[in-house]
């Protein structure tokens, strides 16, 4: 995180020394773009805050630990699709679930949909891509995530 700030700051400084006007223009563009999308971000945050309340870590663990592997894969991809969780929360959680005996393919479905499919980020996505293309992208991402889960299951010997 701090690296990102350091690098951005450095680039900004270099840009400023090379051309003051252009840099000011760049910052204006940044503000304009940020302002334009920020209401959608607030909407998304409201959605996330409610969904995470309804689905705390404990509930997610219970769902992913259900008796049938295939039911778990579907539940995992569903939960992964509707929640938003940064990697620094999702992977430790998955690591713990792994030690509790949750199959790799279930965790794969969970983490991959978490990364690729975004129901809560959909409001933002549709602002840039349009509704139709955003829907197509999310559905194809879900199918890719399920393929990844199945391949993971095969290679780890959890299916056969």
């Amino acid at each position, binding site marked *: 995180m701090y690296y990102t700030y350091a690098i951005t700051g450095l680039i900004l400084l270099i840009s400023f020394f090379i051309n003051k006007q252009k840099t000011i223009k760049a910052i204006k563009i940044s503000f304009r773009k940020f302002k334009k999308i920020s*209401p959608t971000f607030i909407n998304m*945050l409201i959605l996330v805050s409610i969904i995470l309340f309804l689905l705390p870590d404990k509930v997610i663990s219970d769902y992913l630990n259900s008796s049938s592997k295939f039911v778990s894969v579907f539940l995992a991809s569903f939960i992964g699709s509707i929640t938003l969780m940064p990697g620094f929360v999702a992977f430790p959680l998955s690591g713990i679930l792994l030690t509790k005996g949750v199959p790799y393919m279930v965790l794969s479905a969970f983490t991959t949909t978490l990364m690729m499919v975004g129901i809560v980020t959909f409001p933002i996505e549709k602002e840039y891509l349009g509704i139709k293309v955003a829907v197509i992208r999310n559905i194809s991402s879900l199918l890719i995530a399920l393929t990844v889960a199945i391949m993971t299951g095969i290679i780890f010997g959890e299916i056969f």
Partner: protein
Amino acid sequence: MKRNVIRIAYILTYILFLVVSFILGYNPGKEIAFNFISFLIYMLKILPCAFILIGLFEVWVKKEVIEKHLGEESGIRGYAWVILLAGTIAGGLLVAFPIAYSLYNKGAKLSIIFTYIGAAAICRVPMTLYEASFMGIKFTLIRLLVSLPLVIITSIFLGNYLTKRNYRMVEGK
């Protein structure tokens, strides 16, 4: 206009609910407020950098450069470039959409744009290393080797399909 009124009413209701929850000591409301604030902080850490870089990109990078390397004539190296770019930029999907839009405006072709969005979701380098440390290298490798080719293939199909239909990306409405 009407849409804005509904949006403001909705946000005010939400804020009112949180405030009342705090006054009455209603726990679910407090938890939701906590979730909201922690995610707000998380996003405020990422977004300013991302948008400043987007601004600088818009001013400094010439359209010809993007057209040449990521445009219609770019070929397979364009995909390699854009995956490399996606892998090194933090922030995931949220940041990927505005960046993808800037790339598009500078002349990158659609299949490359969709590859960029997909790759930003699945192969950021810091996240991948973090994942491997919790889940094992085998798990991470399977995920990458299966998903990345599928992302590229679907992006090419989607890109070609939309190009034929004269699809345009528009920012906001």
